[in-house]
């Protein structure tokens, strides 16, 4: 039997079992609207690219990393100094996480501004908010793993924030830390969450999110959805995928260049008894929250500043999650208010982040 006869035979055999033809027909029929906001459509697939890079580099790092207080810092030092190209793998993992979070934030704010969360895409938005929370939690749990003085102090501050939530706060802090304080148990817990719980949760919600996007199709910005017939469309395969590939290539090039020229350093091993070092700061994506908590007065009327700030942030998060249910009618006026809040949030986050950086 010749190979050229064998291949179609294998294809037919697989087709009979998997039914790929339906998928290829779906991809051929899928269309992407072309308008002035089309650029935002590229963020979704780029997030997937960085998630893939995170998984690959994360697995490579997990081969050498040891999640105990005696070995964690030393194993990272070993990855950086002894493992061939280990420092680049760690650097790519570090930068890729930042890229992923930045793109998730861009993706969410673009959807917020062009109002793609409206009926029938409420669940797409809500699953997206879950994915944002999971991505931020990935960053938070990963920050402790090098077990240096800065990561320990930042985790102490970070895990102490939920304590200000009324009624359940102390319990949440204890659950996160695996005890009253940040110890070796916290490190092991964070490592377990970082490499098993979070990837599984993220994959599960990601499947739902992508399914909903495929089922409901690409949304059109407010205003354009009324003149749907006038909007130009492009086939997803291959026209749009080729364009996405260009974006992936450029982003990958920037990622590897940054990873080589600006690799993250490693501080000295954390000492549980040592006082917190000066200038503790979380990663850039938590800076605006950190600064918000910092500038709040210690007491407002009968409530402590921390409790009020955390409660307000929690309330804002809940409103953000239920945004499609708040802004459900295609009314221009309400839409404008929501757009104004979105722009205000962007300016606020940027100002607070810069303020925290220059301090």
């Amino acid at each position, binding site marked *: 039997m010749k190979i050229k006869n064998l291949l179609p035979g294998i294809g037919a055999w697989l087709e009979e079992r998997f039914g790929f033809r339906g998928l290829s*027909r779906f991809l051929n029929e899928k269309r992407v609207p072309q308008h002035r906001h089309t650029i935002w459509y590229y963020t979704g697939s780029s997030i997937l690219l960085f998630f893939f890079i995170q998984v690959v580099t994360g697995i490579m790092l997990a081969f050498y990393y040891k999640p105990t207080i005696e070995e964690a810092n030393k194993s990272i030092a070993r990855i950086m100094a002894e493992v061939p190209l280990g420092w680049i793998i760690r*650097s790519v993992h570090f930068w890729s996480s930042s890229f992923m979070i930045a793109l998730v934030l861009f993706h969410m704010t673009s959807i917020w501004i062009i109002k793609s969360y409206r009926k029938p895409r409420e669940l797409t938005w809500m699953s997206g908010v879950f994915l944002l929370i999971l991505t931020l939690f990935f960053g938070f749990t990963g920050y402790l793993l090098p077990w240096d003085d800065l990561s320990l102090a930042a985790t102490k501050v970070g895990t102490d924030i939920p304590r200000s939530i009324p009624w359940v706060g102390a319990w949440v802090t204890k659950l996160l830390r695996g005890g009253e304080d940040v110890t070796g148990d916290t490190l092991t817990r964070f490592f377990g969450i970082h490499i098993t719980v979070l990837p599984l949760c993220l994959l599960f919600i990601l499947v739902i999110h992508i399914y909903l996007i495929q089922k409901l199709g690409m949304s059109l910005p407010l205003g354009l959805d009324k003149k749907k017939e006038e909007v130009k469309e492009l086939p997803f395969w291959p026209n749009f995928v080729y*364009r996405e590939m260009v974006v992936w290539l450029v982003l990958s090039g920037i990622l590897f*260049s940054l990873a080589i020229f600006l690799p993250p350093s490693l501080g000295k091993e954390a000492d549980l008894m040592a006082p917190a070092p000066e200038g503790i700061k979380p990663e850039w994506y938590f800076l605006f929250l950190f600064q918000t908590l910092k500038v709040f007065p210690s007491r407002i009327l009968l409530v402590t500043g921390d409790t009020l700030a955390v409660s307000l942030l929690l309330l804002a998060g809940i409103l953000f999650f239920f945004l499609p249910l708040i802004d459900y009618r295609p009314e221009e006026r309400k839409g404008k208010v929501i757009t104004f809040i979105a722009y205000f949030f962007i300016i606020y986050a940027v100002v607070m982040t810069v303020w925290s950086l220059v301090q």
Partner: protein
Amino acid sequence: MMKIEKLAAFILISYLLVFSIFSSSFGQQASPQEKAKETEVKKAPEKIVPSPHNIKEKTAIYVFLAWMWVSILVLIYILRQKIREVDRLYTLKFLGSDF
């Protein structure tokens, strides 16, 4: 003549043997001041800044970086041609839904 050759070979082998056995300990013959200095350096550094381990790795990384950007530019060029082609075919309505 054979005697001299044997003697030369014996001296050479003994020299190599002695050198190989003691060479590792020769490196450790440092003065107490130097030893103190070494332990001071080895005492957990404040910050480890990663960088290429040697000149060979450094060169390899820069070559890889240059190669990567050249490959990216070539691939973008090819993709641009492909995009033009598929867009042209789409506007001509050449491709059906089952191509």
